[in-house]
């Protein structure tokens, strides 16, 4: 299905090339639109999908994610001017996590740059970016094409994902390092496999021509049919849990993307999002550099942090205070109960003290018991590391589980 064929506005939900399989495997028929595509919120139960991602292998349809093909003589320099990170040395076969900013140094979106082959790049983004990508091309000889629906993609994540994919017939995964990619052969068609994902665990993303989409799906689920490994589909709700555990923020959910922000001060810079490590001032000019340099002169007033919340209550939309009944210093942006860590986890935006992030804040949590409302206080400690960060995530070769 090409991008243009896709634009039928009379269709409420568009179908991904995996639709037939997804429809068949869904037990509860709980759908959401992701980028206009019918996407499962839950296939059977959130718990079984969550544990597939954490204990065995989960599979998720990534096709709706925005994808752009960037080629041409200046492709690398163009990308380096677009994003805040230095990608000038991104070798073919490597992937880089990046953010890009507007002129004011506020984050528009985040995503990944895949250097597929020499001079041939793919940019994956959370939100539609074609207009921004095109208008960022002044001064560069570069071709930018949206390829969202020209590529079928699956995210195969979990401790046994390497074993599953190897059993499915993909060779060469043993030596594939995190943020690396290979072009492999699967039953006679080409699949690009990258060791990337959104779960913070061992995992891969598979990219192929939509005409081979079902064959790719079948090859993976056939491993389960053959009784080798458990493989389960992953819905959006379980994904929301694992991505918090992994420490990945979502533009639009956890902060307002700059290009859709109307009110002054409601957009965020990489420093405010705790993504300062993605900003490189030593490389040539990039959009937002001047503004970010100016911002860097002053202490960051507020910052996105990861919180471990004590107690058994989820900090649903809570305000944060410097102490019990103290001064309000922030708000919760995302939260989840982590079954594997047995903890309540959250992303929050908190005020710094002259640029220093307080290590402890208190959440005022409202909760209902048999329809009666109560409030309580929970101590929250700030953590820098991802909540869930198993050794196998970065081991090469990943052990067989």
């Amino acid at each position, binding site marked *: 299905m090409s991008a243009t064929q896709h634009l039928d506005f009379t269709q409420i939900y568009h179908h991904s090339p995996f639709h037939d399989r997804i429809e068949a495997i869904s037990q509860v028929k709980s759908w959401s639109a992701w980028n206009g595509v019918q996407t499962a919120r839950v296939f059977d139960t959130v718990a079984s999908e969550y544990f597939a991602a954490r204990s065995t292998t989960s599979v998720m349809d990534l096709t709706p994610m925005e994808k752009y093909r960037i080629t041409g003589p200046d492709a690398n*320099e163009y990308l380096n*001017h*677009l994003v805040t990170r230095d990608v000038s040395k991104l070798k073919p076969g490597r992937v880089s996590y990046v953010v890009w900013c*507007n*002129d004011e140094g506020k984050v528009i979106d985040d995503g990944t740059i895949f250097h597929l082959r020499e001079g041939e790049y793919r940019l994956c983004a959370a939100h539609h970016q074609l207009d*921004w990508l095109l*208008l*960022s*091309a*002044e*001064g*560069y000889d570069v071709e930018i094409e949206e390829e969202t629906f020209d590529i079928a993609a699956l995210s195969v994540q979990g401790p046994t994902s390497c074993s599953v994919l190897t059993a499915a017939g993909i060779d060469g995964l043993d030596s594939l390092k995190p943020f690396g990619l290979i072009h492999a052969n699967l039953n006679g068609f080409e699949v690009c496999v990258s060791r990337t994902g959104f779960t913070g665990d061992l995992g891969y993303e598979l990219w192929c021509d939509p005409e081979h989409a079902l064959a790719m799906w079948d090859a993976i689920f056939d491993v389960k049919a053959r009784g080798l490994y458990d493989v389960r589909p992953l819905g959006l709700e379980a994904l929301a849990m694992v991505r918090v555990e992994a420490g990945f923020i979502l533009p639009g959910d956890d902060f307002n993307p700059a290009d859709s922000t109307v009110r002054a001060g409601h957009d965020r810079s990489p420093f405010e999002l705790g993504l300062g490590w993605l900003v490189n001032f030593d490389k*040539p*000019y990039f*959009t*937002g*550099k*001047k*503004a970010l340099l100016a911002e860097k002169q002053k202490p960051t007033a507020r910052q996105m942090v990861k919180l471990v919340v004590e107690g058994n209550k989820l900090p649903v939309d809570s305000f944060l205070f410097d102490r019990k009944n103290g001064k309000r210093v922030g708000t919760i942006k995302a939260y989840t109960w982590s079954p594997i860590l047995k903890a309540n986890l959250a992303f929050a935006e908190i005020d710094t003290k002259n640029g220093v992030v307080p290590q402890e804040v208190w959440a005022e949590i409202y909760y209902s018991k048999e329809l009666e409302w109560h409030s309580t206080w929970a101590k929250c400690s700030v953590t820098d590391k991802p909540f869930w960060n198993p050794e196998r995530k970065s081991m090469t070769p990943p052990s067989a589980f």
Partner: protein
Amino acid sequence: MTNQTVVIGGGHNGLVCATYLAKAGHKVLLLEARDQLGGPASTTEFAEGFKSSVAHVLHSLNNKVATDLQLGQAGLERGEAVNTIALSADGNHLTLAKNVVSGNGLSESDLATYANFKSDFQAYAKALEPLTMNKPPRLKDMDTQDKFTLGKLGFKLRFGLGKDNMREFLRVGGINIYDVLKDSFESEALMGAIAFDAVMGHHMGPRTPNTVLSYLNHVRGEIYGDQSIPKGGMGQVVNALESAAKKAGVTIRTNAKVAKIKVENSQVTGVQLEGGEQIAATTVVSNADAKQTFINLVGGRQLDAMFSHRVKSVRAKGNVAKLHFAVKGLPKFTGLDENQLCQRLIVCPSLRYAEHAFNAAKYGEFSKNPILEITIPSLKDASMAPDGHHVVSISASFAPYQLKQGWQQGGDDFIATVLSVLEQYAPGISEQIVAKEMLSPVDIEQQYGTSGGHWHHGEIALDQLFMMRPVYGAAQYDTPVDGLFLCGATAHPGGGITGIPGHNAAKRILSMGGR
């Protein structure tokens, strides 16, 4: 080398800015791409013995600039005041002076209204002067100067104009000249003549919103003095500016085309000429328009993406072609004597005529009946043409930059069209022509490096004026590139031979740490 200031472009604003800076102690090098200073204000020979300048009527040179730079001593002669004569095919012309109009058939009411109308508009223009002679104030993060400017503007609007006039100004400021004229006047010919000044040089017809503002931009010149046709063409003004610049110590190089503005870490470091010569500079002032400056000379790689996009989106598509006719003998215009031929003649017999002329431009076609501004500069200065000959200089609109058939194809057709209109007012003139030249907006762009061949380096429109001229982020003469400034018509308050952008830019450069 330290503290070298380079001015790119020896148009009149470049010269004005360079002179102010040199007077304040800057070491200034002015680089002009052509072999001659002045850009479209220079007087050039278009056929053997026949001279003219693209800009041919002087009506807005700012007095402060002229006084500060002692242009009188430097040889400036504005020439005597000329009236505007709105031609009628039957010879029943209207003569428009600053505040008086005369002509057969004008009603008592129109005669009186004209005087009031003009004095009102001159008052509006005066009230806006604090805005004109200063950097346009930012609305966010104002500095003291900005607050002062806004305060003065507010005071002038409220107490200078008075409550009723301020209210009227705020009512008409953003609307179209058609409605305003229809509310006030009866004579079609008179309305056409006034509307002419609102649309000439713009991509606008009388019904286009914003034409009151573009008219006001024209009227601003009237509060500085009278319009004139300088002896020796506009080049004479340029010569005076050149003398003043040289006297102030500006080093001038012609045939020095800048290929690149060099930038490191958002700081300007100098310029590179075509041919590779590098000139280091701590301050670079560009008299070129925003697109030339940022897109072609700095380049998008050194700029933020949205800034480049805004610059590229500036509406700057010229709509005026310049025609120069070398004629044998003095052309005869129906009903005009020789003294009247020395005036500024216009062809725009009605609002409808102008609107229809503009309609064509919307669709990439030139007007079948263009509006014309005609001068005969050789009557002011016999040296502009050989003995017994004259130069007829015509600005003709609408002649869109992006002509559907292309100017290569359409150029001759347009000359024929202009001549056929001219014949209605000056029968037989075609036979007198011995040589001709036409500069389409594309030619003007190529010869003078102005994007789109636009008179004003960008439409004079509410969304491209004041704190948004040429784009926000570069509206106070300084730019996102530290040490790089704009000083041309692309900057506030826009085009015309005013010298104001050059003056304001110099003031800004000096206040930002210049000496």
